[in-house]
Structure formats: C-alpha cells, structure tokens
C-alpha cells in the first residue's frame, strides 16, 4: 500500500516535469541565496577568529620603541634577566614572487599559548621550527602561493590569510634584521617585585592592549546588513516555495481525493506527502547549496576586499566548506519547505472527500480569503507595534522589521483587488470590462508571486537606500571630521612636545588632539581635548547644540558628547554628565561619531590639562595647504624621524573609505539582481501554471471574436500592469524598510542613527528592471497561448475535456 501510494504520488512529477522544475528551482534558489550569504558571513567570521587567535598578542600589553620601528635584542635579554616575563616579536613585510606578505617572528618557548600553531601533527619536531632553515606556518590559500621559498612551509588553518609565522631567529634572517625586535609582549604572570622599566630599558615604552573593537563594530555592521539581506531573500524564496507547493497540491487535489476514495488512509497519505516533500527538499537543498557556494565564491573577493578595507586584516578570498554550513543550509531548506507546505498539508487533512473535485479552488477563492489576509496583516502590524513600544534590542528591531514587511506583502492582494475593482467599475466597453474582471479573477493565483516580487523590490530599495545613505553620510561626515590635512602621533610626551615645536613654524595650525581612556556613566570611554580653533567650530558634525557651544567647551563650562553616549544614557543638550575627578559637566552639544563603539566626550584643551594633567600629549592635527602636506609628511619621516605609521594622510583615509563603499555596492548590487531574478522566476512559474487552467476562461472570448494573438497581448499587458502596481506599492514599503534599518536597527546595534536620503533615479531604474522581468516572465506563456491549436481551445466546449 505504501509503495503503491508513493508511486502514484510521484508519478505526477513524471507527467508534469515543469511543475517539478518549478518547485525544485524555487526551493533551490531560496536556499542558494540564503546559504550564499551565510557562507560569506561564516568565512569572514572564521577569518576574524583566525586573525584574533594568531594575533592574540594585541590582547596583551606590549613594550615598543619610543623612537623608530624596532629596537636591539639586547634589551629583551636585559629585561628577562631582570625578571620581566616578556616574549619577543619581530614583524615585517616579506616579498615573495611579487607579492608582499606580513611575516611575524615569535619565540615558541616564551610566546603566549595559542599564538604559535605548533600542533603535533603539523610539526612533530619543535626543533625544526627554530633550527635553520626553520619552518613557516601559513593559511592553506597563502601556503599555496609561497613557491620558491627556501624555508619549508607548513599549513595551518588557525592562521589568517596573508600572514606568515616563523621562529624569531628565522624571521630576523628572512627580513634581514639581525638582532632586532619590533616589540615585547608582556605576559600575564609577572613577578611581584620588578625593576622599573626606565631602569632597564629606558628607550622602550609600555603600550596598553589594543581593543580593535571599533573596526570589529563596523565589520559587524556590514555582516549584520548582509545577514538581514540573506533573511529577506530567504523570505522571498519561501513565498515562491509556498506558491509552488500550493500549486502542486492544488493540481493533485483530485488525485488525493481519489486515493482516499480508493482506500488509502489519511495518515498514510499525509506521511507519503511529507516523505515526498522531504525528498524534494533534500534534492533542492543540495542543488541550492551548490548554487549558494557559487554565489559566495563569486562575491567573496569583493566582500573580502570590503572587509580588508574596514578591518585591516585579511579575510580569505576563497571559501572553505564547513560541515555546519552544509547542515544549516539543508536544515533551512527542509524547514523552509515544511513551513511553506504546512498550510497545504493542513488543507489535505481537511480535504472533504465528497465535494466535487475542483482543481485550483484556492485560486478562485473569493473575498473571504482577502479578509483572512487583512486579519493576518493586522495581527502582524500589532506585533510590530508591540515590538516597537515594548521591545528593546536588536531582536525586537528585527521582529518589527520582519512583521511590517510580511504584513505589507499580505496586504498587496487586498490593495490590488480594490484597485482592480475600481478599474472594472470605471471601464467602458465589453473588452475592457472583461479584462479587468478577468484580471481580478486571476489575482489569487498570482498573488503569491506578486508578494514575492514586492518583498524582493522592498528589500532592494531598502538595502540600497540604506547603503547609499550610509555612504553619503559617512563620506560627508569624513569631510567634516577629518579636516586636518595630516594626523601625527608621537611616541612619547617628550617627542610630542618636540613634534609641536617642529611643526609650528611649518604649518598653518597645529591642533593638539590629546585624550585619555576612562569610564563615563559606566561605559568605556575616551575624553578628548581639542583646541579652540575655527577648524572645529566650522566643521565638527554637531547633531544638536546649545547656543555658544564651542565657547562653553573652550571655557570648560560645557562638554560635547558623541551620539552613542547620548542614546545609551539618554543624555542630551541641557543635561549634565558625571566625568572622572568629580566633575559634573553640562552637555553643550551632541555630535555624530560613526564607527566608534565607545562613548566619547569632547572638552577644551585647557580644561583637559587642568582636570587631567596626566593625559598623554602625543597626537596632533596639522592644518596646512593640501599641496604642501606630502612634503611635510616626508619631512616628518626624514628630518624628524617619525615612523611612517605615525603619520596619517587625510586623503588616504577618504580614498580608502570610498573604495570600501564601492566594494559594498558591488555586493549589494549582485544580491539585488539575484533577488529580483528569483521574484521574476516566481512570476514565470505562476503564469505558466495559470496558463494551463486558463483555457476554459479564454476559449469563450476567442470564440466571440478575439484572435489568439490579441489574447496573448492582453495577457502580457496584464502581467505588466500587475508588476507596475506591485512596484508602486513596493517603493513606500522599501523606504519604510530603509528607515527601519537606519533609524531602528542601526541605533539598536551600534548606537548611532543615520539620516535617510532618497534616490528616485534608483527607483526608476529598479522599476524598469522589474517590468522587464515581468514581461520576460509573461512572454513564454503568452507565446504558448498565441500558438495554441484551435482544436485544443474547442475541447473546452466538448465533453471529452
């Protein structure tokens, strides 16, 4: 019974391969997009983890040279003899086959645990690591490029791409820096009594651990947006799968009834359907995973480049397959199918055995269904409202976003039904009346595909608006914030004072940017002192300010705080804030501070020195004519002896930021096209399926005097008109999505809110693309209709049909 029943069920697909293709393709595309984005995210995260592990050194305090990039190895020996638990590191760039790699040399005997990936399987003999010619560890994709290197290369998954790790002695040889060190890592366990650093190594200075979290925050922001996009795409895919499964079930409704009438028990039928769907989900899921891998592999280089720009560290440009990714992808395919099929299976369970078989009964569903959609949309809006009013945090923000989007999609058929009814009422002439009435009748069958299109377009408009707004805001903000042509950092306060003296006669203005790290309102924070200079008064991006804000900052009667601190502590202009040292300061203004996860307070330089005299006096902004800036930078390096990485060129930062955004756009544009393609595919499949049952409706009109070609043209016009109405509905939904991403999700995730800009040309371009997709999707069914043999149409009027 089981085998016979299953065979009868799946025989449907043998006779209707196009339907099978639709179902499998829909599910595969949905899985592909989701898994592709997830693969990119997973790869990026894995690369960060590798980088964080192999560069665990940044979590430790370090001893570095006060002047220059390196120092003599003798200092290390002196410190060890004095009881300092330190581990030496030498770092430099190594050119191999025309490519530059970052080589880090470490001492495996003193390095912190986990820093050296010396696993027994990889290097059974530790002596091989530090005995010439030594060994170099590298990530798999990096190791493959290190041909012609005399030193043996060992592969380690724990290392970030582009990073080479060797014994310090080997590194000194390879970098041609004998007896030189870049820094000493100060290990956690130190003796209780220690000789002061100034006694043993006065030319070294202690540097606190670097958090690196500002970069991580930006990266998280990028990945979060990608994840949101992936989920939206999957939601679009779910609509398609839901539609495909619904159609497949409806077309077999009579078969289900016959099977039951012939004695197949309900529980057997439902189990067989579930097994069939599981098999299809696994097949489509596997295809989707392969496609997703392709998408990820194609997009990853751009994502990697984007993140490299943001993060500074390497992200692998090639994918590595992870079992968890495969597992999650297949699970999402199966779960997605289950969710999409739940309603259809429920209808099978409730299927009345005796009602005359009416295929596509749901497609002819009347206004009752619209009321159900309205009720579901209202419930989702209520959920969104609850999330908005009562929820906090990122999950509430995403609930709000998801609920509103799905509610908008559910309301689309209702809106179209009303509009088409209005058009039918206004129509004059029999053909126009038939056209509108017939379109209204087709609506239930097309509504799922149109909902998918709406979601795709809304996601497209929303994410594009967000990214474009971010770019516009961020670059504008950079222009305001990075006004000084050069930013220089001294190695010590003494050098800072020398630097100021060196710069003053050579620049238009030397602006101290001195700061201390502390805690404000319980949060990690930076307090910056800035000079009273037009540079700030004219350019600093203030979101809100009291009158004479800068005067109050300069005099010490007011401070400025960044947006993150303002939002987290609900402190705004007119409030007061407690600062270290028992200082309760009035807030004179709030400024935007994108990319910084920490609280920040800006005060005048004089109040800073008065209240916090211990502050490090090392960083300066230099105002100079832009064409003179490169010469001054050169002089700072050559004449003053400042290391190159202590001088930051404003133009270089801006160029890098713009490059990052261009890469981001490439990724977003690619995902947009993919999502839109999926929605176009949904329209195609719906139209094809509808075409098969349209003959009884079209044949009478043909008999009454319309040519098949004219009918086909009307079908095309119908698809175009419905797509246009969907586009028009999608624009406000997309803008709502963008607003939610910018004003709610960003605030919840990162503490800053971005202004929203509108890009009407993008909408026009997108509308044109969508209409093109709709026409292309409708072309095939229309062509089929135009070439339908008259005999087939006449069958409608015969009993034999």
């Amino acid at each position, binding site marked *: *019974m089981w085998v*016979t*029943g299953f065979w*009868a069920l799946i*025989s*449907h*697909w*043998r*006779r*209707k391969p196009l339907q099978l293709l639709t179902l499998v393709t829909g599910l595969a595309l949905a899985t592909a997009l989701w898994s592709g984005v997830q693969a990119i995210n997973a790869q990026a995260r894995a690369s960060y983890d590798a980088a964080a592990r192999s560069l665990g050194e940044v979590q430790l305090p370090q001893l570095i040279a006060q002047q220059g990039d390196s120092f003599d190895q003798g200092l290390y020996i002196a410190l060890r003899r004095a009881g300092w638990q330190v581990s030496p590191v030498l770092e430099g760039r190594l050119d191999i086959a025309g490519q530059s790699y970052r080589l880090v040399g470490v001492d495996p005997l003193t390095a912190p645990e986990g820093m050296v990936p010396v696993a027994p399987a990889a290097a059974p003999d530790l002596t091989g690591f530090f005995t010439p010619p030594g060994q170099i560890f590298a990530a798999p994709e990096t190791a493959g490029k290190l041909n012609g290197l005399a030193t043996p290369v060992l592969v380690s998954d724990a290392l970030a791409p582009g990073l080479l790790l060797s014994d310090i002695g080997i590194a000194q040889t390879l970098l041609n820096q004998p007896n030189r060190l870049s820094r000493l890592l100060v290990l956690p366990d130190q003796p209780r009594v220690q000789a002061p650093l100034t006694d043993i190594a006065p030319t070294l200075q202690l540097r606190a651990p670097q958090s690196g979290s500002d970069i991580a925050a930006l990266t998280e922001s990028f990945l979060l947006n990608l994840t949101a996009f992936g989920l939206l795409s999957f939601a679009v895919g779910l609509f398609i799968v839901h539609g495909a499964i619904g159609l497949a079930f409806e077309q077999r409704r*009579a*078969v289900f*009834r*016959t*099977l*039951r*009438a*012939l*004695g*197949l*028990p*309900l*529980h*057997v039928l439902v189990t067989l359907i579930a097994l069939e769907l599981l098999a299809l989900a696994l097949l489509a899921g596997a295809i989707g995973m392969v496609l997703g891998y392709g998408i990820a592999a194609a997009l990853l280089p751009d994502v990697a480049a984007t993140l490299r720009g943001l993060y500074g560290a390497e992200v692998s440009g090639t994918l590595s397959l992870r079992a968890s990714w495969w597992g999650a992808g297949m699970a999402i395919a199966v779960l997605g199918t289950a969710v999409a099929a739940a309603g259809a299976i429920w209808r099978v369970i409730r299927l009345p*055995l*005796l009602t*005359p*078989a009416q295929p596509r009964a749901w497609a002819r569903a009347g206004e009752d269904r619209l009321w159900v959609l309205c009720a579901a949309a209202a419930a989702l809006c209520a959920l969104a409202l609850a999330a908005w009013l009562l929820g906090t945090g990122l999950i509430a923000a995403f609930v709000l976003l998801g609920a509103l989007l799905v509610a908008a999609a559910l309301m689309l058929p209702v809106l179209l039904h009303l509009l088409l009814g209005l058009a039918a009422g206004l129509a004059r002439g029999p053909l126009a009346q038939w056209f509108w009435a017939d379109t209204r009748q087709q609506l239930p069958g097309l509504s799922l595909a149109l909902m998918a299109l709406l979601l795709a377009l809304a996601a497209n408009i929303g994410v594009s608006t967000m990214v474009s707004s971010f770019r516009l805001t961020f670059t504008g903000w950079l222009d305001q914030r990075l006004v000084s042509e050069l930013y220089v950092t001294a190695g010590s306060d003494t050098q800072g004072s020398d630097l100021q003296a060196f710069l003053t006669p050579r620049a238009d203005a030397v602006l101290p940017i001195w700061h201390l790290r502390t805690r404000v309102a319980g949060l990690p924070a930076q307090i910056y002192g800035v000079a009273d200079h037009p540079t700030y008064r004219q350019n600093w991006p203030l979101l809100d300010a009291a009158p004479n804000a800068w005067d109050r900052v300069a005099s010490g009667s007011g401070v400025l705080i960044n947006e993150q601190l303002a939002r987290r502590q609900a402190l705004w202009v007119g409030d007061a804030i407690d600062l270290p040292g028992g200082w309760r300061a009035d807030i004179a203004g709030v400024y935007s501070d994108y990319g910084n996860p920490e609280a920040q307070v800006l005060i005048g330089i004089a109040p800073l020195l008065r209240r916090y005299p211990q502050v490090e006096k090392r960083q300066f902004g230099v105002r100079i004519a832009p064409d003179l800036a490169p010469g001054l930078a050169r002089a700072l390096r050559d004449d003053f002896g400042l290391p190159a990485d202590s001088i930051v060129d404003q133009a270089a930062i801006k160029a890098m930021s713009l490059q990052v955004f261009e890469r981001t756009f490439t990724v977003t544009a690619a995902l947009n096209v993919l999502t839109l393609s999926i929605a176009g595919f949904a329209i195609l499949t719906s139209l094809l399926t509808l075409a098969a049952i349209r003959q009884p409706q079209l044949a009478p009109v043909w008999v009454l005097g319309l040519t098949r070609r004219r009918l086909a043209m009307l079908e095309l016009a119908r698809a175009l008109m419905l797509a246009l109405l969907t586009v028009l509905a999608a624009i406000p939904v997309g803008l709502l999505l963008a607003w939610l991403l910018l004003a709610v999700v960003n605030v919840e995730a990162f503490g800053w809110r971005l202004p929203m800009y509108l890009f009407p040309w993008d909408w026009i371009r997108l509308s044109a693309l969508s209409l093109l997709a709709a026409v292309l999707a409708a072309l095939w069914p229309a062509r089929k209709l135009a070439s339908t043999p008259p005999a087939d149409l006449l069958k409608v009027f015969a*009993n*034999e049909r």
Partner: protein
Amino acid sequence: METKTQLLTLTDLHKSYPAETGRVAILRGIGFALSRGETVALSGESGSGKSTLLHLIGGLDQADSGHILIEGTDLTGLNDAGRAHLRRSRIGVVFQQFNLIPSLNAADNLAFQARLAGVHDAGWCAVLADRLGLSDHLRKYPEQLSGGQQQRVAIGRALAPRPALVLADEPTGNLDEATGDAVLALMLDLVAETGAGLLMVTHSSRLAARLDRTLHLSAGKLV
C-alpha cells in the same frame, strides 16, 4: 435480519447537513439489505439523497445514526483507517467523473486499487482489460482515452481487487446512450462473474430496469 447470503444491511440510517436555517435532513431512517450477487438500482429525483447514501455505504462519509453492515462488519463503528481498509479491500467504487489518476497509464490505473489492497493479480487484470476492450490502450494516459474508455478503466479498477460490493454513482452519466449501454452491460457481466453485489445510483428507469430490483428514494426515505 441478516442471513448468510446477505452482503449489505442498512438499519435506520440518518444523515443531515448543516444549513443556514439549521440542519437539513438528507436521509431519514433508511433500511434495506442487499445479497451477494444481487444488483440493485437506486433511483430518485435530484436531492433525494441517493449519492449521500452511496457515500455512507462506501465509508466516504459518516452517518448521524443507524448501522451499515458489510459482510457483518459495522462500518459506523470504524475509524478512518478502518473504513479505508474496508474500502480498498472489499468495496469497488465507480464514479460518474471516472476519477482516474491522470499521471498513471490505463494499465496502472486498472491495477491500482488491487495493488493498494495488496491483492494484485496480473492474470485477472489482463482478463479484465481484455473483457473491457482495453488491451490496445493500456499504455495510454487518461487524457488520451475517450470518456467511454476512461469509464471502462474505472470499472476495471473497481473490480480488480475482487470486491464483495461494487458501488456505482451514475457510471454512465457522462457518456452517450450507446456507449453508456455498452459500458453498463460490461459492468453487469463482470459483476455477475465475480459474484459481487452491485448498488448503482441512476436517474434512468431504462437502465434501472436492467438490474435485479430498484429502490426509490424520495425526500430521504425509501418509498
């Protein structure tokens, strides 16, 4: 009173359906018996409850009260799985709309219920196909068959598991008169050969006259 040769016994059967004005009684105290090998026509005007009665006997619907005994098994006491088992193994159903499975060819459709019941007999199916004049059409799919051919496949499907009872709901209703007569003749011959009982709903007194006896249903009662 059930005897050894009695196949089907109905006792005080009631069935009603909900309507806007309350429940509408469709069957009101139906009772009759049908013996093995007997052919009975069920006639009556539209809405008299003929099809409802047939569906209740086939286990496709449930009665409000009363009993339906098929070979001594009370159908009204069975759950969905029990009714399904009885249906596939002991009852053959022929519908007016043929209700073939469009994705299976004629041969597979013909053998389908017998396979489902686990009593498939290839030799018997071949005999049925031959007797029904389908031997040359077994590879064809339903859409490639005429209405008369489709109904002959449906009759073969109903008889393939050698059921005790065949229920036919206007089996010739979708066929022209000549084809309908031929199909009915075949069905009666085959039912007689298998020794099954036949209960056939029909509007036609001409067709009803070809069966052993006729039950007339009016406003939910046998008259």
